[in-house]
């Protein structure tokens, strides 16, 4: 539930470094990833003993705290007004101004992340993660430190979210806390559930569907005020539909289900 928090941390670190410290694109992105991963480790270590629903609540709390800080630390984050005027990124002397340019950068980075995710998923490391998902006790009895694996993957997730956040900040050039609320976290969870957890391509499909669907709605010709609300209903409806008829999502191998219920 804290994904939007790490996403926000990434965006704010990138924005503040780019404006106040005048850092280069690569440096800010790297720093935002490292900064977010640091928080990832902190949250990971402190919530290790909490399992299941309680873990979700703990990360939800971190999400709320992060939003409050972004919203209230006016001197540093600009408060509700956010941070305007984030400069366009310059990569090896190339100033990225067009949408196409951004598409290339984001697409390239996305490809690298998918490649990395695929490699992890099909590795012995990924195998241990799958085992942990199903049975922590069995995995421990095979000499794997469940805690270490959990912290590592949680931290990695935090880093990737921050990478996305910093790219977002550069792209829209103006950020404020409302982009990083719990709604954003829920949106990301929707992407995973609908695309399918436990697969590399599932979330990609989920993102494509959930991001493009509202755009299609726009062409239907509904007034903006209705379309925005309709979107929420659409997400909710999709989520319920998938939970009932296809809990594993489009491409997932594993159903989102209560562990106890499965037994």
């Amino acid at each position: 539930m804290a994904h939007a928090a790490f996403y926000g941390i990434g965006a704010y670190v990138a924005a503040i470094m780019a404006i106040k410290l005048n850092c280069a694109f690569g440096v800010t992105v790297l720093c935002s990833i490292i900064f977010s991963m640091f928080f990832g480790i902190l949250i990971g270590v402190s919530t290790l003993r909490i399992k299941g629903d309680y873990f979700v609540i703990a990360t939800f709390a971190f999400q709320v705290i992060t939003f409050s800080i972004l919203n209230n630390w006016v001197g540093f984050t600009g408060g509700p007004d956010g941070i305007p005027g984030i400069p366009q990124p310059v990569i090896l002397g190339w100033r990225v101004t067009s949408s196409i340019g951004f598409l290339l950068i984001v697409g390239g980075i996305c490809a690298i992340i998918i490649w990395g995710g695929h490699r992890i998923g099909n590795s012995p490391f990924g195998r241990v993660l799958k085992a942990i998902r199903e049975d922590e006790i069995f995995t421990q009895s095979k000499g794997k430190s469940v805690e270490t694996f959990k912290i590592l993957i949680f931290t990695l997730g935090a880093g990737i979210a921050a990478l996305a956040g910093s790219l977002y900040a550069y792209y829209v050039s103006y950020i404020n806390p409302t982009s990083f609320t719990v709604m954003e976290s829920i949106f990301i969870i929707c992407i995973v559930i609908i695309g399918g957890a436990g697969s590399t391509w599932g979330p990609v499909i989920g993102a494509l569907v959930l991001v493009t669907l509202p755009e299609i709605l726009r062409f239907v010709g509904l007034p903006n005020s209705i379309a925005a609300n309709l979107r929420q209903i659409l997400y909710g409806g999709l989520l319920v539909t998938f939970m009932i008829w296809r809990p594993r999502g489009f491409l997932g191998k594993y159903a989102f289900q209560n562990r106890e219920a499965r037994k």
Partner: protein
Amino acid sequence: MSEELLIIQGLEKNFDGIRALADFSCSLSQGQILGLIGPNGAGKTTLLNIISGFTTPERGNITFKGMSIVRMSPHKIARAGIARTFQDLRLIRQLSVLENVLLSFENQPGEHLANLFFRWKQSKKQEAAIRNEALILLAEAGLAEKANDQAENLSYGQQKLLSLVCCLAAKGDLVLLDEPVAGIAPEMIDNILGIIRDLPQKKKSVILIEHNLDVVMQICDRIIFMDAGTKICEGTPGEVRNDAKVIEAYTG
């Protein structure tokens, strides 16, 4: 007698006031098969859980290969060389049979995140070597044809066999088996017992819990009869079979 592999001294464990183990001591030497018998609630599974680190005793000590392992975390104990199966048959059912065995190997470079990106070739090579070893283990157990099936599609007996094969994959010196042949077909029992009997040749010792007395008498070197968390008697199968207290417990 050869050097002691495992020494258990004065273990005590209570669950909400119910005594599971009371001042329990025993030892096991290299290459021995020790059987634990006794009625339900005698503390047999609790003892295995304590040895493998999943339960912490209130008092007592366990020394494995000269190192105190009591209060160590389960994964460290597993790494020290103690593998186990579970009474309620744990496996990763959504992974393939082969993957379950692969998971059981220790010290895999590919399980370190950094190696996946900086030492990919080495990880790949190691994975291929482990895969060969795993396939050999599965072939020996008669599960070769099932290697790519999901574990959940195996029969109950095959799943129990697989959980034993997983213990062989871990390069440990001690295997703890909690009811390895309970509730399975006779042919499969013979298959599993054959594997257990060969363990001492592979320099592995065994502690085994089993309710089937014939099985225990057949394959164990030594048997401990437990009741209410204490050792009632201990000895060779012949001695235990003729012990008055054991006869009383099993014939009523």
